[in-house]
């Protein structure tokens, strides 16, 4: 599927008026003025962030720009020193990734948080197994393997990544298929947002494309996706908007369909400021 075939459910805002509210799609996840210090290092210096419904937003930035810290704050892995995070316009305070997960934000981690010796079905339900009905089963936490297998088959069928048996150990899968399992797990459990940290970093070309395709399907199923990546071609292929993080702040949000890759890199490295870009290139 070529990127131009994407059915973007909204158009980039045609004007630059920051005060516009009526034409903007609903914000699913929003951060205002996030600050995070590590000792003397300021990782986040008042970052804003906005994720719209139905979009794939890429977060890019140089090393040390604070993109990982931003994502960690959004996924609950760190607690910001100050600033606010809103999920569906409700103020939220995440104290752990588990907290964020309970609020419907699922994260796919770069180092593939799977247990390789366990089966695909078990990995999909790891930590939230389906129990058999009845008080005794609840008491001893007796898992319903049959139901988990059926649901695993249903979840993975939509993804079309060529896995045949859900009772296969994850270690028998290729890197892309493992990433597929991790993506499927998040898509199955997320209610609001899926965050993906470098989902294609460890993969070859073909497998990388397969995972990009998966990410699109997650978006098309109605879940907005935040993706962090160093791979510019992948970012431009998949993102609806690109959040450029620089020196702990949001430098710009740009539209990959109207901005060049070189201008994007220029903003990322500070060679150009957002004000120097053409208005069509911006997407805020």
């Amino acid at each position, binding site marked *: 599927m070529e990127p131009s075939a994407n059915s973007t459910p909204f158009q980039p805002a045609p004007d630059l008026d920051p005060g516009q509210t009526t034409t903007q799609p609903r914000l699913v996840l929003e951060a205002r003025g996030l600050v995070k210090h590590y000792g003397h290092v300021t990782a986040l210096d008042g970052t804003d962030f906005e994720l719209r419904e139905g979009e794939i937003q890429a977060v890019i930035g140089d090393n040390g720009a604070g993109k990982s810290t931003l994502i960690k704050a959004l996924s609950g892995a760190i607690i910001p020193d100050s600033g606010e995070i809103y999920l569906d316009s409700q103020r939220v305070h995440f104290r752990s*990734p*588990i907290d964020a*997960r309970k609020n419907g934000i699922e*994260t796919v*981690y770069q*180092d*593939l*948080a*799977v*247990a*390789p*010796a*366990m089966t695909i079905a*078990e990995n999909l339900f*790891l*930590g*939230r*197994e389906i*129990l058999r009905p009845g008080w005794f089963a609840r008491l*001893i*936490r*007796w*898992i319903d*393997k049959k139901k988990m*297998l059926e649901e695993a*088959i249903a979840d*993975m*069928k939509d993804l*079309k990544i*060529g*896995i*045949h*048996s*859900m*009772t296969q*150990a994850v*270690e*028998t899968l290729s890197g892309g298929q493992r990433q597929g399992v991790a993506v499927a797990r998040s898509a199955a459990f997320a209610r609001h947002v899926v965050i993906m940290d470098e989902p294609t970093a460890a993969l070859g070309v073909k497998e990388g494309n397969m995972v990009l395709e998966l990410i699109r399907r997650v978006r098309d199923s109605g879940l907005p996706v935040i993706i962090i990546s160093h791979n510019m071609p992948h970012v431009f292929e998949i993102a609806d908007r690109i959040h450029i993080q620089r020196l702990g702040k949001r430098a710009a949000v740009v539209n990959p369909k109207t901005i060049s890759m070189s201008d994007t890199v220029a903003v990322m490295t500070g060679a150009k400021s957002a004000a120097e870009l053409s208005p069509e290139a911006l997407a805020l």
Partner: protein
Amino acid sequence: MSEQSGTTQKPRSLLDRLPSLTIMGPLVALLLAVVFFSLQSERFLTGQNFSLILQQISVVAVLAIGQTLIILTAGIDLSVGFVMALGTMVMAKFAVELGMPPLVAILCGMAVTTAFGFLNGFLITRFKLPPFIVTLGTMNIAFALTQIYSRAQTVSSLPEAHLFWGNTFSLGDAVFTYGIVLMVVLYLLVWFFLSETAPGRHLYAVGNNPEAARLMGIPTQRVLLLTYTVAGFFYGIAGWLLISRTSVADPNAGQTENLETITAVVLGGTSLFGGRGVILGTLLGAIIVGVFRNGLTLTGVSSVYQVLITGILVILAVTADQLSKRRS
């Protein structure tokens, strides 16, 4: 059970089946040993002898349940046998010298072994100490406490309750002890726990990839602490089995059993790297050790050869484990 979506199934290589190979290897070794010893001695393949082998392995087998749970979490426990010995001493002396009701004394002994398991788990999870070193330390502590408390004296004239598991019943021409039944029941219960319950699966996940388990919301430290504690409880049960079998509490008990538990676990195909293995494999491993010991004794071979063969089997099993780990 599988979802076929048009494309051909990728052929499963030998590597995919290695986990089952690690269990098939010992099974073949066991069958060969049984055939060999049956040809060498007509007393070997009898119900009576089979019962004897099971009695001989029951203590090691129950200790090895705890060891298996711990090794599945990628840990190890070197204190097993010594903690059990301390437990048996408490069970015996509390009843014989303090005059406690026998069952209360037994429960006290089991509480001591459970407390030692908890101590191991606490030191490992709270201070992030390596299990090898922690349990090496508690092994020495348990040994010293046993010697001090018993003044290196064996305690005998134990009450009836202490000897309960040595009671027997007949099945055909074979006589089985209650202890054998207890051993089998415990293995079935732990098998069910490990394969059919959420906490059991979490134990595998913690051993297989602790970081993934943590990110998926599994309280990994609590799983570890509970595992060591429950293992300590099994050492208590093993202690009761031991005094039922020997009718005494011996301060020097448990020393050979200590490493035999690890032998049984490894022969049973459980990976020392954690997260892989089945509990029934450990029972198989214990039976292999028991069959070799028993068979060599029956054929009049010096027991040193039994030690030699066990050592070779362990190294073969660990090598298979390492190879399958490297390739995956």
